[in-house]
């Protein structure tokens, strides 16, 4: 019997089968019971309807590090009907795609309303199969098709021997539906009971008294929240005093826009859905000129379209936070698949040269804390600050104690903003030469501190100039801010383990968790490594990194792109040779990818390992998703 440690994957037809309704409810119930939930690989298509969708939840007693490769304990297939367009029956889609990943002794539940599915192979591997005519029960018995997912939920609760008295589930339903009337709550409870009854029958007819997995509530003092990386960025932005946010809808950045549209007005802020990518960023720049902390969020194509404005923010020394939730590129690429392909863009994009800061989040906690830091740094250095995230994080969910947000709150500090009372005499110089490179900044409406700000080269007063030595001085003033940052605010990479004489595994972004998991797996095999994980990537903190890198026996950079963008940066900045483990098939790194890749590099003979050939669903014919 495995207690409080399983990976549950729900699959179905996108939009129609409401896959995430099931996983959302389950996730919340588990978290309310004090369990830990990690759901980092939401599989969905960029078309709205009809493609395969899946959502795996890892549930455990302690915070899980990783999502257990692609192995699944419990598979739930919500498809029910046959589709003449597909060469294979669609109520087998989830089973065909994910069935092969079911562990020995795992569990399969599928909707058998239309037809039974041939599962003898799975059964031979010891998988317990539960055909559940959920849709049929919902339509025929409950006269309400939407309850089909509650029927499945009820079945699952039974199989997991969890919340059998519906204390948690009932409360959830009341919270959600009581406003629509008691009836809605009751029919859902009834649906759950029907699901339970159906699987009871299968259990007993097979002579099973358990499925071998069980979830047990853990008494937990702290209320927990289950939220995505984007929601964490949204919260971090609110707490950092961001009061103007704009964005043009784009996957997977839209959920930040939607979160802030909902919450920011309550904090006195405004949120603008741009009519295009450039209106978005320009309005955010204008808002910053008027004094408010502002941000713009987008993904790949929308970031590429804003490049000209990054340069403007840098040249005019206008603070701006730019959130790039990376997805698989290039071009439209794979809008709902993950990648870390925009690092070089964040560091270099744009003609000419500007000061800029690039932060990168690797966990949902870091989405929150780095969002806060991004606004602070933008304010202090009056330059664009990029906050990189990636699709695995944006859509991934994890439980965090509420205290994570309520305790240790940092106050908002407006750096270097000049008030009328600070002004002496006439000669306010917006771009005054200072040792730090940071000049006193005024906002529109400040008596005595009128400014003329331009993206055209200018002198200290804002006067347009092409005078060679003034130009040289102004370039150097702007770039000096990056030296100041390196002295005052740069953070070294996070180091896990001792670097001395062992292979270093470097990474950034959502690779953090599988990287640490792979480290543990390699350690178990007797291979000691040290993980060097970057959050503060640019300006590159050479002084903090180079000595560290030289301590290791070799350097293997693990990242989700083709080139090895961080590896290139390290080579450029530290002149240290790198090996690379790269994945760019759209799926996040699994622990096995990293452990395998590192083993291959350490075995010698290759410096670049490109993983992901045998991807989970590569074997079957897949009906394409559209775009």
């Amino acid at each position, binding site marked *: 019997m495995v207690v409080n440690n399983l990976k549950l994957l729900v699959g179905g037809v996108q939009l129609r089968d409401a896959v995430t309704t099931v996983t959302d409810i389950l996730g*919340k119930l588990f978290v309310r019971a004090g369990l830990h939930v990690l759901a980092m690989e939401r599989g969905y298509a960029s078309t709205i309807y009809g493609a395969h969708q899946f959502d795996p939840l890892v549930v455990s007693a302690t915070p899980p590090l990783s999502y257990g490769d692609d192995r699944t304990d419990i598979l739930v297939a919500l498809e029910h009907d046959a589709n003449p367009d597909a060469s294979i029956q669609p109520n087998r889609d989830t089973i065909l795609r994910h069935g092969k990943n079911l562990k020995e002794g795992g569990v399969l539940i599928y909707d058998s309303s239309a037809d039974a599915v041939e599962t003898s192979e799975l059964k031979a591997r010891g998988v317990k199969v539960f055909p559940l005519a959920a849709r049929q029960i919902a339509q025929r018995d409950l006269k309400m098709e939407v309850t089909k997912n509650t029927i499945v939920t009820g079945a699952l609760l039974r199989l997991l021997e969890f919340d059998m008295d519906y204390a948690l589930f009932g409360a959830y339903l009341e919270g959600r539906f009581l406003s629509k009337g008691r009836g809605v709550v009751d029919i859902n409870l009834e649906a759950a009971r029907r699901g339970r009854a159906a699987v009871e029958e299968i259990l007993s007819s097979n002579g099973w008294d358990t499925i071998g997995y069980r979830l047990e509530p853990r008494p937990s003092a702290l*209320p*927990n*929240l*289950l*939220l995505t990386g984007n*929601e964490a960025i*949204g*919260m971090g932005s609110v*707490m950092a*005093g961001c*009061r*103007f946010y*704009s964005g043009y809808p784009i996957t997977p950045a839209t959920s930040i826009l939607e979160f802030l549209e909902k919450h920011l007005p*309550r*904090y*006195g*802020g*405004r949120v*603008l859905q741009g*009519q*295009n990518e*450039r*209106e978005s960023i*320009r*309005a955010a*720049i*204008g*808002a*910053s*000129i*008027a*004094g*408010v902390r*502002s941000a713009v969020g987008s993904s790949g194509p929308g970031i590429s379209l804003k490049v000209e*404005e990054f340069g*403007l923010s840098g040249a*005019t020394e206008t603070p701006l936070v730019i959130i790039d939730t990376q997805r698989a590129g290039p071009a439209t690429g794979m809008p709902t698949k993950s990648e870390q392909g925009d690092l070089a863009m964040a560091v270099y994009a744009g003609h000419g040269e500007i000061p800029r800061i690039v932060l990168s989040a690797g966990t949902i906690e870091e989405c929150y804390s780095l969002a806060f830091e991004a606004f602070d740094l933008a304010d202090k250095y009056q330059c664009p600050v990029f906050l990189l995230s990636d699709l695995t994080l944006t859509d991934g969910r994890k439980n965090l104690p509420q205290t994570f*947000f*309520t305790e240790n*709150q940092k*106050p*908002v*500090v*407006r750096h270097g*903003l000049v008030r009328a009372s600070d002004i002496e005499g*006439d000669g306010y110089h917006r771009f005054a030469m200072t040792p730090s490179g940071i000049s006193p900044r005024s906002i*529109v409406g*400040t008596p005595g*501190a*009128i*400014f*003329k*700000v*331009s*993206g*055209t080269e200018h*002198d200290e007063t*804002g*006067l347009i100039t092409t005078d060679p030595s003034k130009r040289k001085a102004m370039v150097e003033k702007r770039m000096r801010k990056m030296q100041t940052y390196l002295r005052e605010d740069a953070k070294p990479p996070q180091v896990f383990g001792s670097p001395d004489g062992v292979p270093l595994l470097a990474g950034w972004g959502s690779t953090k968790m599988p990287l640490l998991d792979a480290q543990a797996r390699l350690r178990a095999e007797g291979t000691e490594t040290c993980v060097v994980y970057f959050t503060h990537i640019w300006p590159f903190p050479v002084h903090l990194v180079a000595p560290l890198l030289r301590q290791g026996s070799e350097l293997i950079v693990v990242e989700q792109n083709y080139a090895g963008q961080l590896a290139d940066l390290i080579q450029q900045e530290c002149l240290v040779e790198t090996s690379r483990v790269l994945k760019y098939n759209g799926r996040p790194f699994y622990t096995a990818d990293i452990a395998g890749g590192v083993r291959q590099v350490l075995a010698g003979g290759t410096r670049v390992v490109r993983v992901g050939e045998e991807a989970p669903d590569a074997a079957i014919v897949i009906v394409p998703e559209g775009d």
Partner: protein
Amino acid sequence: MSVASPGTAKLWEQNAFPRHRIQWCPGCGDFGVLAALKMALVRMGVMPHEVLLVGGIGCSGQTRNYLNGNGFHGTHGGPLGYALGAKMVDPGLTVIALAGDGDTLAIGMESFIHVCRRDPAMALILMNNGVYGLTRGQDSPTTGLGKIMEEHTEEHPPFVDPARLAITAGATFVAQSFSGDPKHCADVYVEAFRHPGFALVNDFSPCVTYNKFNTSNWYREHGEHIPEGHDPSDRAAAWALLDDFDRRGKLPLGIIYRAPRRKKAHARLPIWEEELTGIDPAPMFSAFR
């Protein structure tokens, strides 16, 4: 907007700080716009620090530097976007975009149409000279005004009319003026600045160097003041007026259309530390439990 102080006139008429040497060609229409802006701002009684001038890229956009008041100058085609953001933050500001026909109607078309729809209470003085001045004389989207073209190509399409476009897109104030008559311009500008929504002033401002067709004289011959009786609050009347002037080969000068939309008032957004203390995250928690 603060009350007119006695010193305001001097503030607007004195040299801007920092003092940019005016580098328009002698006779450039933009001199008239600059003069008219000074008159209008004096009349508004607003203080320079309360004003944000957002310049386009072009000869026209330089106006921001020759005039007092805060100046921001971003990317080509961008003034309306920046201005929108600033205005949304602080409704108390007087926000004025100053840009050319290329900046506004070529590369800036994406902003122009949508800002007309959004209707923020700010003005755009469009210095329309029918040419790209600053890049030395290429065709702009208003090139060809008054010329009859027998045959078009994809390369050389007919001109667009910013007044008609603005009305179609939903702007609530559309006027025209001629920079050769700064007094009239100033009258129009004041109305534009006072309008509680987006105000377009299409100001014919000749480029003496590169547009040898739409010269000052040409504008003087073709411009005609809008008759007293015109009711600018009537959209159909505005359209009919444009049709009538078009038919007669004339350019209407004055307020063509003015009909404020009902808009929600907004307070200034929190900016200062004291407005950002004790932020409580709890109201955001509910969806995550």
